């Protein structure tokens, strides 16, 4: 399935994506690594383009790569065309910020909040970027590798 999209993208949009400075990485899944500033444009293209029409945002998560910064990973599907893609954004450790995709997929709301809550990645433009699972006054972001659990007293 994923090869399907890869093929289609090569036909229609490959040049565009190349022009945007994206890499296409076809290891088992269609993986697009996108710089943060291009994320919204690429996402919008993926959602609205007829070939891909990624109308379903599956998942948003973040991975702490230590000194290499954070990776934010989006899982996209097209319910209509049956294709899927993974979009990855790398952000530096000291400034983990990506644009929010809530404007494209309203369902991204809680997923982004969760990633923010647990990993400390900021989603610029999110309507209500607050902690969701943890207390408002919780210090730190537990899924970061440098987070140390406080022993319970």
């Amino acid at each position: 399935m994923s090869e399907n999209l890869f093929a289609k993208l090569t036909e229609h949009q490959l040049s565009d994506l190349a022009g945007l400075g994206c890499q296409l990485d076809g290891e088992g899944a269609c993986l697009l690594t996108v710089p943060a500033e291009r994320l919204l444009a690429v996402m919008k293209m993926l959602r609205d383009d007829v070939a891909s029409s990624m109308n379903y945002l599956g998942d948003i998560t973040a991975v702490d790569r230590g000194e290499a910064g954070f990776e934010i990973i989006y899982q996209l599907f097209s319910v209509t065309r049956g294709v899927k893609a993974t979009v990855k954004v790398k952000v530096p450790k000291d400034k983990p910020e990506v644009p929010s995709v809530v404007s494209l997929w309203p369902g991204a709301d809680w997923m982004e909040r969760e990633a923010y809550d647990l990993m400390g990645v900021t989603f610029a433009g999110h309507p209500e970027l607050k902690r969701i699972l943890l207390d408002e006054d919780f210090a730190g972001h537990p899924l970061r590798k440098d987070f140390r659990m406080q022993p319970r007293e």
Partner: protein
Amino acid sequence: MRTQTYELNMGPQHPSTHGVLRVILELDGETVIRAKPVVGYLHRGIEKICESKSYPQVLPYADRLDYLHSMGNALGLCQTVEKLMGVEVPERAEYIRVIMAELSRIASHQIFLGSLVGECGALTGFVFAIRDRERILDLFDMACGARMTFHYIRYGGVVQDLPEGWVEACRKFLDDFDGMMETYRNLLVGNEILQARLKGIAVLSAERALAMSASGGVLRASGVNYDVRKAEPYGIYNRFDFDVPLGTVGDSWDRMMVRLGEMEQAARIVRQALDQMPEGPVMAKVPKLIKPPPGEIYHHVENSKGDLGYYLVSDGSPKPYRLHVRRPAFVNLQLLDELCRGYLLADVVPILGTLDPVLGEVDC
């Protein structure tokens, strides 16, 4: 009149919020202005814990996500790890897994159905559903000795082969199951009051459902044909002949009916699996120390709540570097606010019921 609106807490300690969900209702009289779900009361930090556990130690946590559909959760995680490691699962184990996952789906939907009508006041319906669910739990009990957190599906297969007489017991259950469905339909579907309570309530359009990343019965009730078992058949699901029940309106009633249909389809799959199931080993050769190669993978399965996904990052060590769970109930729960708005206080509980959240999964 300029009635002042007021806030009303529903939960976390409330008889019908499916656990420790808290909904802050803003009401005008009895009309819901806003229904803000507050989650996290059951947050255990499973994702963080997993990073410090070896892969076999991680597996029980999957059971504790959606504790009503443990088999499906474990199936998803095992398949994720197996996919990354490239392990081939024996045929018989694949069938057993499908049988268990689908039985688990039926059990989970029975809870859904029972609690939904029970919250609407039809306690007898609730009791019927729970009673029938016991039959499935008995089957699980026979297979693995547990009734809730089974730890039955393991990396490479299942922990042990089905005991003697299990298949017969399962067939017996399936034979009775048609009668159970008949009862549900008679008791619930034809009930005028229940129809009045659910029809036309909290209508969710297909576009909105997609945009909100809803999945499972919630999405399909709105008429979107998206079932991971069909869209990306994992395991051996492409060997079975089953339909995806779809709704037309997207109201609470459709969400209930879609799940009723899914129960029937699940039984259909189980029947086929029982018929096709070959003899053979139930466990692949898996190293004692599970060390998936470095890499990352996203794998998702259709569990009873919807699209359950695992995002696994391995650095080659015996412990996962990062394990993220895409919990369908968590994502679906976002819809509560917009579905409740404008309806009455009494509608909130059935609407929540049709979203079918399990807080163990929502809070992770």
